[in-house]
């Protein structure tokens, strides 16, 4: 999908530039945009390494496992069809913890592992069930405790206090996640409503 989006953005820019007469600006923008990407990454390199270093300590000291245990009662409520102490539940909790701490590199493999375990435990073939959908929804919403990327960008642009958005981010992302989960419960209930189920058996 990114192939099309990227090509689309560039082609639209060029076509637009022809009509607005902004061709010189667009051609210099191509180079300056690429250049500023380098500046951003270099500018954030220190903060990025500092952050990853701290997180490595959290990982090695098994803080992540502790947090996973701490959040598991909540996750059990969200995914009631998983065994409370099964492999799937364990992988789910580890993935959610990695996401909370912003360990993007660790979260994806743990998440894939969780998906495989959910599939196995719930004997799914090619259709997702409620627990799996809720798990993916949790991964498509941001549950990161510290909004590092946004804060680093804010630092670059002279924010008085780059991390001051954190409480606001917490409230916003919790509400967003709650809305997503509620919608998944609602849609799941609609699909499995008695009327529908009866109609389906009639068809069969």
């Amino acid at each position, binding site marked *: *999908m990114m192939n099309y*989006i*990227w090509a689309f953005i*560039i082609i*639209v*820019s060029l076509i*637009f*530039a022809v009509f*607005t007469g902004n061709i010189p600006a667009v051609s210099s*923008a191509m180079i300056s*945009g*690429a250049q*500023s*990407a*380098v500046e*951003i*990454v270099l500018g*954030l*390199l220190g903060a990025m*390494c500092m*952050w*990853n*270093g*701290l997180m*490595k*300590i*959290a990982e090695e*000291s*098994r803080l992540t496992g502790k947090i996973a245990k701490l959040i598991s009662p909540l996750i059990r409520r969200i995914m009631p069809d998983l065994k409370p102490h099964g492999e799937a539940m364990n992988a789910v909790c580890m993935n959610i913890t990695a996401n909370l701490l912003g360990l993007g590199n660790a979260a994806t493999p743990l*998440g*894939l592992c969780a*998906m495989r375990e959910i599939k196995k435990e719930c004997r799914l073939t*090619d259709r*997702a069930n409620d627990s799996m959908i809720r798990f*993916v*929804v949790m*991964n498509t919403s*941001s549950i990161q*405790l*510290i*909004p590092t990327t946004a*804060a680093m960008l804010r630092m*670059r*642009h*002279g*924010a008085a206090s*780059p*991390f001051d*958005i954190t*409480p*606001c981010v917490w409230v916003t*992302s919790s*509400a*967003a996640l709650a*809305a*997503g989960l509620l*919608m*998944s419960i609602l*849609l*799941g209930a609609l699909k499995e409503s008695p009327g529908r189920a009866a109609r389906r058996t009639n068809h069969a």
Partner: protein
Amino acid sequence: MPEKLGDCIMPAFAAFIIIYGLFSRVSVFDCFLNGAKDGLKTSANILPTLIGLLAAVTMLRASGALEALTNVLKPVANAVGLPEQVVPLALLRPVSGSGSMAIVESILSENGADSFAGRVASVIQGSTETTFYAVAVYYGGVGIKNIAHTIPSALTADLTGMVLSGILAKVFFGM
């Protein structure tokens, strides 16, 4: 008060991790160095993506197309209390992480980090995720084809996050 709280979170978090590491007898500095190397790798990995996307977004802005798009969608954004500058971010956020980072960067440099648009953009970036990417990677990875109501649920979360960013930025920062 909330602003003060935001200031304390980072140092408190760092101190907690280091002290916890010491108590668990982890050689904290060695560990830190290993992690920092990972940070180097991650940065190197996102650089090419960011170059491509930031070049594209900067071109879009220079051509005037971004402004045109923003103007078209301005009434929609303002109706839900969002500054029109975040329209492109709202569109690209569910699709591309680096792409939205490129747009946040351009919003912050145009309007300033502590402007209303800058704050809303930062909150959106911090409170939403790359929905379509996560869906593709996770379901693709285990061969689930029928994803039922995943997308509408996930997009409900994104939409809620975006609308709330506008409202809550006003509440938290008195703008």
